């Protein structure tokens, strides 16, 4: 079943003793066609899991690069229906790479929770991260999503203390996303040493794979985090490739080549460690 794609992915990587590379891109950015081409090219470039951003007018937890990408996508006529269509088209060629939708609650709420979950599951969506739905509101979407066979992946942050963590984990499945810094996407990352310590703290509470994200931009940074994390998430740096390119085609190619670099680094991480 589609919901187990994430579990199978982490199981396979555990056997290879390496971390997953999770790439975030905004659906519909720079336009539908190039966004779909990026999606299609990511697995071959080395992405193990794809987070697909659902554009929203008011992305309160995002920094400038992802805000801009969302605005551009929406201005180009992108919407929730088209995001799901993009996933459906991707699944025609790819049955194994997990896709996690990431976004804000309002577009899902307006689409209708039940209808959204039906359509997402049918399109081949494996999981969801909804930034503004804390565990206090699990009945809104998290519980129905799990019933529909879609993982609900929760964020844990530096402000999620030991008292709160179990509550955050209760309905989380697939993996846990550790946001390594307070702040919006695209802000600077703390030192790897600090993140490693935090991760140890979190692992005392869960056996779920833990992904680390926020502020990871380069291959060396990804390599460092991949030594101890179960997955490394890169988002703003990829989205910026598109913003900085002269053409849409160039942007697409730059996203895929950065993904290749990141993938190589993630694959190297623990072998380097074993040698040294």
């Amino acid at each position, binding site marked *: 079943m589609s919901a187990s794609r994430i579990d199978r992915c982490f199981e396979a990587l555990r056997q290879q003793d390496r971390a997953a590379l999770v790439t975030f891109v905004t659906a519909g950015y720079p336009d539908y066609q190039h966004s779909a081409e990026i999606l299609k090219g990511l697995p071959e470039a080395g992405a193990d899991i794809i987070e697909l951003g659902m554009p929203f007018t008011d992305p*309160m*937890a995002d920094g400038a690069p992802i805000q801009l990408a969302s605005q551009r996508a929406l201005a180009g006529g992108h919407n929730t229906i088209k995001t799901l269509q993009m996933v459906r088209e991707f699944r025609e060629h790819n049955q194994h790479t997990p896709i996690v939708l990431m976004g804000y609650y309002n*577009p899902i709420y*307006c689409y209708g929770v039940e209808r959204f979950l039906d359509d997402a599951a049918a399109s081949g969506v494996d999981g969801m991260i909804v930034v503004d739905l804390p565990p206090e509101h699990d009945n809104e979407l998290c519980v129905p999503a799990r019933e529909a066979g879609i993982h609900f992946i929760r964020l844990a*942050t*530096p*402000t999620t203390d030991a008292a*709160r963590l179990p509550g955050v984990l209760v309905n989380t499945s697939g993996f846990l996303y550790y946001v390594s810094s307070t702040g919006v996407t695209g802000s600077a990352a703390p030192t790897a040493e600090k993140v490693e310590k935090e991760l140890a703290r979190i692992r005392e509470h869960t056996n779920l794979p833990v992904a680390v994200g926020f502020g990871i931009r380069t291959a060396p940074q990804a390599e460092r985090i991949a030594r101890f994390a179960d997955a490394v998430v890169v988002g703003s740096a990829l989205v910026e490739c598109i913003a900085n390119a002269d053409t849409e085609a160039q942007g697409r190619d730059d996203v895929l080549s950065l993904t290749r670099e990141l993938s190589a680094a993630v694959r190297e991480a623990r072998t380097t460690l074993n040698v040294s």
Partner: protein
Amino acid sequence: MSTATTLRQGPDVNGFFGHFGGRFVAETLMPLVLELQKEYARARNSKDFIDEMDALRRDFVGRKSPLYLAERLTEQLGGAKVYLKREDLLHTGAHKINNCLGQILLAKRMGKTRIIAETGAGMHGVATATVAARFGMECVVYMGSVDIHRQQPNVQRMRLLGAKVIPVTSGAGTLKDAMNEALRDWVTNVADTFYIIGTVAGPHPYPAMVRDFQSIIGEETREQILEREGRLPDTLVACVGGGSNAMGLFHPFLDDNSVAMVGVEAAGEGLDKRHAASLKGGTPGVLHGNRTFLLQSADGQIQDAHSISAGLDYPGIGPEHAWLNDIGRVSYAAITDDEALEAFHTLCRIEGIIPALETAHAIAYVMKVAPTLPQDHLIVINLSGRGDKDMSTVLAAMDASAENAEKDAGKDVKGEA
């Protein structure tokens, strides 16, 4: 049949007023919001907190504010008797200071040293900058670039008071975008920063907390009208942006069934064109931490509001209003830019009071309905703020209409020729 129910108990433990409200925020902010809720619950029962607030309300803010019988307005309208609750006479010129004072005292209790705020008209920004100066705290105010342009005097005032005003250019550059940016600041600076939200919106406990701090308006009004008229008013009227001045006036009267209440939204260019009337023209959705009525597309994308008044130029409304509308306890009306401008001029000329453009929406509504009501009908308008900040907007509108009048006159001449 008598029932013991009260409409004044909300929200529930999760911050819901009926279906509306809640705490829809990112995980990073959740522990902060919960801590604030705990600390507020403690503070509101603390004698020290209450005493300090009372003293500052009296000596720093200038409470209580008068309840003023608008004799000439009443006479001109020829119907209901119109009272004005003079929040415009408070320090900083609007009701916003009531809330800022409460929140800065909380910030102090919680050991926070840095204050952030969003502002539309700039009245909340000025009030926040004022209390931050008074308590020696750093202050950063986010303000949309469009609003910075149309509310220049308030931008200058904030700077004089030592606040840093950060222009926000994302979106339409108005209040909603300023609030996004303030939330981004808060999620980044979690340790030392207190976010003073300026209206009855945001995640729980803000809607309830801001309402409580503003309820002094309704409490005083009740006392004053009983003293003057020996009975409760028949109708309360207030403008609604996020809805804090309206909640402050309405809340103490919610269980008095004889008292009707009307919240006045901004109809902008008209409800079929660009406007800011989320209840009259919106649908339920989730934004800025709560579920409420929003101006949005079918895809759940938030639309830009429009109002001549920066303080009403917001595509949402506080969740308690959404609920009060739902259960029919409060009714809501909408007033256009043009109607508000006309009411603005009327109050200037016949009462000698320059109201804020926000407030002018409430006055315009009363100018419509008062003539149809009997002379013993008592209306209280919340005169939420003064209009000095709106000079450039009003003068520009006067110039524009003078130009249009000239053009029309020109057309007539040509048509006749």
